[in-house]
């Protein structure tokens, strides 16, 4: 069985992708080849294919058919995976977690629900979530999510939907451990604005981190989505 991956193509790090990638189902001649398609151009419903497993980003889960695999943007970044490893070294992580994203105005707000899903897997079940947002007709549009994970962790997640370059900042203030990441400062080339690699991931990562969609996952994401769109609980 082969794979079809829907993704933002500008996010893909081809150098660290080890799988053989083709750009259409028609060109898939071997079962171990992976078809990589643009998530902004292709609808999952048009890809019903018994011979392939389908991998889609969490932001378009509402368009999905049963039996697909969903992946979360945040979970795929190499920096986030390393940060997760460090936080998980603590038996019961205690501290203050801060995530900040600057994202395109056209990006789906479902991204926030996906981040909540990922962070609740890392930091524990959410006890209380509070959402504040500015007037969505004015750019930039800013959203603040305050989360009490109850077991000794509190978090602020902040999203600025704007026409600026994409950026992620993350801070963890734990017990005797402080982690700080800012994609803006991760210029792997000595050229201002060239931080694309900091916010890229491989197709292999997408497949490895994806979650089989079941009712529990759908319910959790829907719950987070309702909170983000509907206010506090």
């Amino acid at each position, binding site marked *: 069985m082969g794979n079809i991956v829907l993704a933002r193509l500008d996010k893909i790090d081809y150098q660290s992708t080890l799988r053989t990638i083709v750009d259409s189902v028609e060109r898939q001649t071997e079962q171990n080849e992976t078809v990589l398609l643009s998530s902004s151009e292709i609808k999952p419903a048009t890809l019903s294919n018994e011979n392939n497993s389908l991998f889609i980003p969490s932001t378009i889960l509402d368009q999905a058919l049963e039996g697909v695999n969903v992946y979360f943007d945040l979970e795929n970044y190499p920096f986030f995976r390393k940060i997760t490893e460090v936080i998980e070294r603590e038996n019961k992580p*205690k*501290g*203050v977690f*801060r995530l*900040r994203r*600057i994202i395109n105005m056209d990006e789906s707000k479902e991204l926030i629900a996906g981040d909540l899903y990922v962070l609740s897997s890392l930091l524990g079940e959410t006890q*209380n979530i*509070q959402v*504040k*947002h*500015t*007037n969505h007709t*004015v*750019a*930039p549009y*800013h959203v*603040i999510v*305050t989360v*009490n994970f109850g077991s*000794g962790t*509190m*978090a*602020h997640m*902040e999203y*600025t939907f*704007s026409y*600026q370059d994409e950026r992620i900042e993350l801070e963890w*203030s734990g*017990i*005797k451990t*402080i982690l700080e990441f800012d994609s803006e400062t991760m210029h792997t080339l000595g050229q201002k604005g060239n931080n694309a690699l900091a916010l890229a991931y491989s197709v292999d990562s997408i497949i490895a981190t994806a979650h089989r969609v079941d009712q529990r996952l759908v319910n959790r994401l829907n719950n987070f989505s309702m909170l983000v769109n509907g206010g*506090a609980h």
Partner: protein
Amino acid sequence: MKIGMMSFAHMHAYSYADGLMNLPNVELVGIFDDDSDRGKEVAEKYRTKHFNNQKSFLEMDMDAVIICSENFRHKEMVINAAKANKHILCEKPIATTVEDAEEMINVCDENNVILQIAFPVRFSSSMRRLKNMIDNGELGDIVAFRTTNRGQNPGGWFIDKEQSGGGAVLDHTVHMVDIMRWYLGKEIMEVHAIVDSYFHGIDIDDAGLLTLEFENGVIATHDASWSRFKEYPTWGDATIEVVGTKQTVTADAFKEHFRMFTSGPKSLSHVFYGNDMDFDLIRDFVNCVEEGRKPSITGSDGLKALEVALAAYKSSEMKSAVKL
């Protein structure tokens, strides 16, 4: 100008005294501190006279006092100094309760003395530059703020609630609330907060996240904590990011530093070389007294910042937002 100092319980007293010593037109005429050992030591250091009797100290001929006591004693010292007709610079937070702060402001008004609150972050050159950019319209309309004020656990009376009135959230919320109010010219109308104690095993809060809403719909976050340990490269921070409709700009009061690496448990240190905010605060206060003008940071500014910090505790207890 003759200025006296009341208590060196707060560590900022030392940099304020250093500031006074560097002003040519100012004489540090005496130090009141009823911790006699500390009072004698600092009086010797600053070559001035020590008083352990507050009444005798306030009978001296002087224009103003700087109060750096434990938080819960601000009220007593401000009221006594005001009644003795001394102008006052009071360390933040203004008080430990809203009622005390209101009484202090009223007594200063009645006695026609200046009450300025020590918010030195207002004198950070980066904070002032950002203020000018906002006033010049370079950011457009403000949409949101993101602020932080994290530091180390100061210990001592700071972690005794009776003396301090609160932990990290009280200690490290008022500065940045003051900056946001200053930038926006609007008041905060809603506070939601999570306050807890994570880092030091102490009976007082050392971590807090605040979500704020201003009367004009601007929203803001604030991270207040004593989460920095001594091996961290710097003591802490005071930062603000202003999200505007034209651009987003960040100011960091302690950004101007170089990195110093040494062999040892603290391998990396940030060595700060920016402007001395404490000195600029003292100079502003002295100018204010000299010119007899309204202080740049009033008692009311101190009260507004205190109200937000106290609302954060209430919100955390109630697990819901608090309206101001």
